[in-house]
């Protein structure tokens, strides 16, 4: 007999995958509105992905089977994460879904993408890959430290499903510097990981600046569709971690239907706020020079380190 909690958590994973393009569309729309453009429709990302899936795929002669395998691996890792991350319900379907595993699944995703970029054999793919590798070296420690600080604050190990409950249980105490610092650091990591401004411009194909898009340049058809979809899922997963792990208030702690509905409503609101914040930053800032990025990432590292330290100091 499948428990109600498990069913609900599986449903929440599927929901996250299904909603991922919608959040991308919301972000796009918000950003357009902030820049006084009308922008595309909210559902445009669904249409884009569907279109890509219908198209034929062209593969470079020099590429091996790995090139074809990469999109599936990327999508698979993101799908796995969708089942590991709380969204509207604290309980998650994947029982081994802890924070360390989360960080390494993200690393796996990045690693596959870098391989894909290199496999294509084009200059831009290689360049994008090398830049991505440089950034990941800087991102990973601060991401790990930020989530560790969170786990330390919750005091209940690194199990993602347990964190929201223990944070809510702590009451007002939890609004401590450690949480704020870790959240700030995590937010910077979110921008960096998802190739947003000021780290990368998701809507450019200018060879001098692109990082993430460079690696996708050789992909087409179904492969590109999968890659785009997993990018959107990554954004959704990161944002929902911010909303459900760092600021879990409103999340459903039990799989009862009214709780679930309230949890869904609150998480959607929080996601909307997160998207608005990203859109605001993207409208307000320009992309940084590549060589200034380490400054920002070191700042993020310092923030998460501070979060970690303040757990012990305060």
């Amino acid at each position, binding site marked *: 007999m499948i428990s109600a909690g498990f069913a609900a958590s599986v449903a929440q994973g599927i929901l996250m995958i299904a909603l991922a393009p919608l959040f991308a569309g919301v972000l796009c729309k918000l950003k357009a509105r902030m820049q006084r453009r009308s922008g595309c429709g909210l559902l445009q990302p669904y249409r884009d992905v569907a279109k890509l899936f219908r198209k034929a795929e062209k593969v470079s002669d020099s590429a091996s089977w790995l090139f074809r395998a990469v999109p599936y691996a990327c999508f698979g890792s993101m799908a796995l994460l969708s089942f590991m991350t709380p969204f509207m319900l604290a309980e998650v379907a994947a029982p081994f879904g802890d924070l360390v595993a989360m960080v390494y699944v993200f690393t796996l995703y990045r690693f596959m993408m870098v391989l894909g970029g290199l496999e294509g054999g084009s200059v831009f793919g290689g360049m994008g890959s090398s830049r991505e590798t440089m950034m990941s070296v800087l991102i990973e420690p601060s991401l790990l430290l930020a989530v560790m600080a969170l786990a330390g604050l919750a005091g209940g190990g690194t199990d993602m499903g347990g964190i929201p409950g223990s944070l809510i249980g702590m*009451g007002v105490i939890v609004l401590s510097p450690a949480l704020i610092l870790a959240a700030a650091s995590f937010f910077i990591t979110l921008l960096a990981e998802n190739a947003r401004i000021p780290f990368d411009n998701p809507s450019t194909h200018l060879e001098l600046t692109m990082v993430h898009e460079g690696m996708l340049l050789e992909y087409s058809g179904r492969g590109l569709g999968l890659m785009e979809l997993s990018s959107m899922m990554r954004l959704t997963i990161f944002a929902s971690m911010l909303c459900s792990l760092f600021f879990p208030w409103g999340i459903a702690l039990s799989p009862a239907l009214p709780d679930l509905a309230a949890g869904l409503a609150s998480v959607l609101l929080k996601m909307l706020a997160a998207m608005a914040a990203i859109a605001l930053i993207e409208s307000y800032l320009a992309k940084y020079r590549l060589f200034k990025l380490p400054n920002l990432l070191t700042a993020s590292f310092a923030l998460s380190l*501070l979060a970690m330290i*303040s757990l012990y100091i305060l």
Partner: protein
Amino acid sequence: MDPALAGNLIDLCAVAMLLLSMLAMTTTRMGQLLNAFAAQSLFLAALAFVVGDVTGHSRIWTIGAITLAVKVVLIPRFLKYTSDRIHVGRDIDSTMGIPGSLLISAVLIIVAYIVAEPLVATLETITRNCLAMSMSVILIGLFMMVTRRKAMTEAIGLLMMENGLFLGVMSLSYGMPLVVELGIFFDVLMAAVIIGIFAQRISKTFDSIDTSVLRRLRE
């Protein structure tokens, strides 16, 4: 005020002060630096108000109000005026890159924590947790004075050290006797004014406020 909430607010103010110190490490523009200092002082004043509210000492309110007047308004205004007069450029003036100085700041925070930890155990104030933060702010200010080359940035490093010191005063003992505290404020103000005068003098004598030109005197 609810003690837990007050404790959180105090911690937040202290952390914000520390963050602003680190922000000051990353910035090279005079305007931003002055704003960072003013904001840091603002958090210091806010902290004083929270502490004053919790403990009920009117003396701490006074200290907060003076901080607000002297450190948030007067000193930044005066330094802004000075830096406008001597045309502080925007070029990078640190002898060390930004990531490097941030990482060293992080190390300094850990050092401060190690130094402060045995002390915290002996204290009974609600602000005692801020001691490590205070020492960090002092150490980072010191580090800033060592690595920065412009007279004005060195001065801000010194003022930030003093902010850290006041945080330490709050953290250790809810402030010193009022007479002493007032005298210290007066001294800080005088120091800022005199530093401004000397910065102008350096810029007049050397045609630069880069203190790396100050290297005539050595064995």
